């Protein structure tokens, strides 16, 4: 079995490393970061932290060097989805490709280029320590189900999920994975940009009564859109937010870190995703629209010499 990881940053590296532990899985990793790619090819991919392993995927910065594969796992930031899948489409001419990215709308883009698509959601998180070395910060499950308009077969999804689980990354195959995806989406859209805009860590933001009620307003809009789409959430985002306050009080969400580093954020796939699906279903989402515009405005401010 051949699997190609598209986007081998922190999350992609975790998928690559866990799968490459299995003798009968050939893992290819596509990433434009040549330092990381070279390090993996020279001395393998090391994972430390919550996970601890050393494995040997084949990494490439040129998609032309990657053979046809049975599966794809797309793990780029959502703003690179189109460019990445366009470059690797030939690898997946007869493959099932799974998005494990943040936000809504990635599967729709992937489906323009490959025959069968899997809707994935993953909870493990990590960060790149140095080229060839990734720190795994949290464990957690991954959920996979068919992308309804262009679905992979359940048999395929179960194959990929069971191999990942064997490798040490617990993955559940399900008939409908939208509930898991939207639960995480609503959680992220209600918390990530708030940290980015207020410069407050998650727990501190939650302790501000006004901010907490703004978060709840964003959650309520997300839930209304999910309802209109007929999606049954598999968790209460409000409870996840309160839980995260307990276990990750000082956590600075990835978008907060993006803003501090003045990197483009995933806002278009998070709040932008909720807004766009809201428009499709006729559900008003004024708060998510406001937050989307504010982050876009903030990103625009970096292009100016203020």
């Amino acid at each position, binding site marked *: 079995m051949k699997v190609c990881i598209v986007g081998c940053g922190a999350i992609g590296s975790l998928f690559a490393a866990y799968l490459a532990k299995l003798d009968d899985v050939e893992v290819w990793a596509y990433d434009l970061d040549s330092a990381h790619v070279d390090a993996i090819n020279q001395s393998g991919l090391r994972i430390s932290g919550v996970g601890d392993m050393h494995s040997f995927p084949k990494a490439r910065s040129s998609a032309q060097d990657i053979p046809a594969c049975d599966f794809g796992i797309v793990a780029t930031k959502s703003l690179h989805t189109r460019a990445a899948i366009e470059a690797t489409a030939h690898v997946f001419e007869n493959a099932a490709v799974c998005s494990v990215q943040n936000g809504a709308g990635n599967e729709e883009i992937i489906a323009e280029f490959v025959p069968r698509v899997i809707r994935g959601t993953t909870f493990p998180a990590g960060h790149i320590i140095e080229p060839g070395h990734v720190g795994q910060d949290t464990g957690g499950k991954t959920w996979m189900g068919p992308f309804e308009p262009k679905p992979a077969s359940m048999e395929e999804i179960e194959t990929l999920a069971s191999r990942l689980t064997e490798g040490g990354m617990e993955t559940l195959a399900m008939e409908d994975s939208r509930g898991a995806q939207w639960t995480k989406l609503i959680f992220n859209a209600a918390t990530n940009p*708030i940290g980015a*805009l*207020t*410069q*407050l860590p998650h727990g*501190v*933001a939650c302790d*501000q009564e*006004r*901010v907490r*009620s*703004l978060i709840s*307003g964003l959650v309520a809009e997300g839930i209304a859109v999910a309802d209109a789409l007929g999606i049954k959430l598999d968790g209460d985002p409000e409870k996840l937010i309160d839980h995260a306050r307990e276990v990750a009080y000082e956590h600075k969400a990835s978008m907060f870190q993006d803003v501090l580093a003045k990197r483009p954020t995933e806002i*278009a796939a998070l709040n*932008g995703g909720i*807004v*766009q699906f809201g428009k499709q279903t006729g559900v008003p989402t*004024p*708060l998510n*629209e*406001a*937050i*989307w*515009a*504010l982050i*876009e*405005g*903030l990103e*625009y*401010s970096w292009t*100016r010499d*203020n």
Partner: protein
Amino acid sequence: MADNDINSVCVVGAGAIGSLFAGHFGSTVDASVLTRRPIHAHELNRHGLKITGKSNLQTKIRASTDPADLGEPDLVIVATKATAVESSAKTLSGHFADATIMTVQNGLGCEDVIAQAGDWPIISAITFMSGTKHSDIHVEYELDTATWLGPWVKRGPGIEVVKQVEALINRSGLKATAFDDVRPAQWSKLLFNSCVNSIGAVTNLPHVKAFANRDAMEDLGHLVFDMMEEGKRVAAAEGIELHEDPWDMNVEAVSHGSTGQDEYAHIFSMLGDVRSQRLTEVDWLTGAVVREAHRLGVPVPIHETMFRLVKALEQSWRR
């Protein structure tokens, strides 16, 4: 107040606006300044106040941190930032029993704060003039646009007193226009500032063309527009016919003639405050719209959002 005229004026707070008033009044009537810092009062007593730019004046000024030193003025102009009005009101409490008080702050609600500290009649004013304070004793007069004033709707003096103040300001070399009801102008400026200041503060953007851009769904102009529509619904519920549409003010402010250069973008006072990590005037701008909206039962989710975000930003500096 004296029968027919204003013979003495005390200006509270000598920032740029306060200094412009005091420096111009000094040549016309008995003018004094109530300051917060003793050294500021000392410098003014010693050197007077110099105005350059659109005017060229050197005035003697009586200044003190204690209202008891400043006699019984006919008119008091409170010209501090909105964030300092509460402490100014406390200082004034029990003094200047015969005075009329005029507020010139941005936003809404400063009149109420003053009214709680004493039973002076109050004039609501908004000012469009601007200046740069080079030192405690030197201010440059830049934009020579008018100050608009009218009796505060809850407890104003008669219109004849407002007209006396108008005449005094005009005689001193500044510009003023009296209105029976200044709220249409006050609310236009309020809604404009409530929206563009809070959005600028949160996005770290000065008043660039993006504020009026409504092409793509995520463009900032949609947010500005939708937020202003909310504000206009609040004004309508309050029974106010706006003097000017805040969206037109926004479009006008970002179109710099035919050049359209972003470089000339105005840095909002709230953005300046945020960049220096100072308390902002958001309570009197966006917060004031939220309070009025709640009182009137008008939903304003975007104003609430922006108000909460700016308050949270202020909170982040205390960590």
